[in-house]
């Protein structure tokens, strides 16, 4: 099983996911809806938070969390509901499947961020972020968020009620990401160093990746 | 000090009840295991 064949398989799965998403558009709509509604609710409730960078950071990441909780498990739920999992398992190994879907979830998260973050900064009258630190925390945070959501998504897709459990079951694994990301985003607005948060996010992301690699083979064995 | 004694008594009572319940449970389990 050469590495280049795996890379091709992962690429094929990523393209398949994007095409499915483009054709059904289910996930994107749900996520954008959630992002925009929580954004409006937040900006309506809290108003212009110019100087309160801790609240800004918290609200930003809550909006992103809601958007991802609404949609990041869908890539697996769709396979189970469409009963296409056996076919997928015949054409790719569990590692390739999870890798392809992880990249899709990451891409999906980036698309949501491109749409909601500018709007968030505008609506909340946030001070201009320090783009280097801000994007660093956002990037590593999104990576860890996607990693945890993909692994948990694969689990809850096989339970009764499918996605219903996704938020509750994934939350303990998302909490470290949320805490570090909020803290980092706040720090960059207060011109404080974000190095420790970046290290934390990177370490947690690496730990999740390592554990996922060990566990994916057990995800589907029936 | 009486406050303490009340809490002490309650704690002992709770522990006694829990122990008794577990003991009886174990008895029934042993019977089922035969």
């Amino acid at each position: 099983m050469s590495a280049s064949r795996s890379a091709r398989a992962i690429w094929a799965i990523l393209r398949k996911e994007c095409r499915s998403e483009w054709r059904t558009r289910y996930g994107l709509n749900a996520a954008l809806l959630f992002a925009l509604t929580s954004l409006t609710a937040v900006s309506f409730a809290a108003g212009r938070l110019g100087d309160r960078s801790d609240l800004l950071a918290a609200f930003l990441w809550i909006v992103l969390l809601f958007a991802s909780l609404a949609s990041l498990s869908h890539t697996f739920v769709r396979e189970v509901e469409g009963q296409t999992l056996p076919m997928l398992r015949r054409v790719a190994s569990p590692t390739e499947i999870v890798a392809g879907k992880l990249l899709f979830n990451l891409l999906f998260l980036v698309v949501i961020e491109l749409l909601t973050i500018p709007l968030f900064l505008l609506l909340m009258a946030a001070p201009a972020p320090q783009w280097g630190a801000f994007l660093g925390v956002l990037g590593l945070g999104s990576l860890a968020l996607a990693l945890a959501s993909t692994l948990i998504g694969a689990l809850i897709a096989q339970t009764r009620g499918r996605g219903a459990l996704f938020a509750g079951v994934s939350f303990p694994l998302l909490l470290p990401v949320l805490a570090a990301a909020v803290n980092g985003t706040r720090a960059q607005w207060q011109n404080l160093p974000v190095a420790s948060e970046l290290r934390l996010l990177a370490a947690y992301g690496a730990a999740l990746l390592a554990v996922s690699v060990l566990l994916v083979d057990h995800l589907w064995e029936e | 000090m009486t406050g303490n004694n009340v809490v002490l008594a309650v704690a002992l009572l709770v522990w006694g009840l829990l122990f008794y319940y577990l003991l009886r449970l174990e008895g029934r389990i042993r019977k089922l295991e035969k």
Partner: protein
Amino acid sequence: MILRGILLLWIAAGIILAFTWAPLVPVLQETTRVLYFHIPSAWVTVLALGWSMVASVLYLYRRRLEYDDHAGTAAELGLLFCIGATVSGSLWAKAMWGSYWNWDPRETSIFFLLLVYVAYLALRGAIDEPRRRARLAAIYSVAAFVAVPFLMFVVPRLYDTLHPDPIINPRGKVDMDNRIRMVFTGMLLGFTGLFYWMLNLRVRVLRIERRREDQGRPMEVAGA
């Protein structure tokens, strides 16, 4: 049976001594008493989580449902002790600092463990087929194992920086004289013994249930 007798007397003695013989930690006054229950239940919470995770890894490796029984039961008991630790912790915080909850690092880490337990048991509750439940719960358990160190030691510190509270935090290092230490360690052992006894009972019940279920279809199943 002797062992059970020892456990009965051991914890009873611990309770009595905690209230009568052991002196008070100067700064904590009467509230020291609750520590004899709060910290052992916190200890069992962590012990039970570790036991459940080890059992989960063993299940993934050996595929014997026996290990899954341990993983599930340890989590159920762990949740009980975790609730006990959280409640006694917040009662103690009320007595000491006047508020039930103030994100003190130790409180938050126990609370985050509560979240892990609830999530794990919710996942188990949502899967009917025993083997699938065992497999998926084991996967979650190992994933949570990675998150626990971050939840226990990293996130609470972040909360401290996020909400630096003016309230003084006296509970840095409790300086215990040897009498307190003796009763305290005794209670720790007693609680651990109680945990393993309850675990043992529940696992035996699960084994009986499975044997009865299989009686209808005798099939030698390697290792099940």
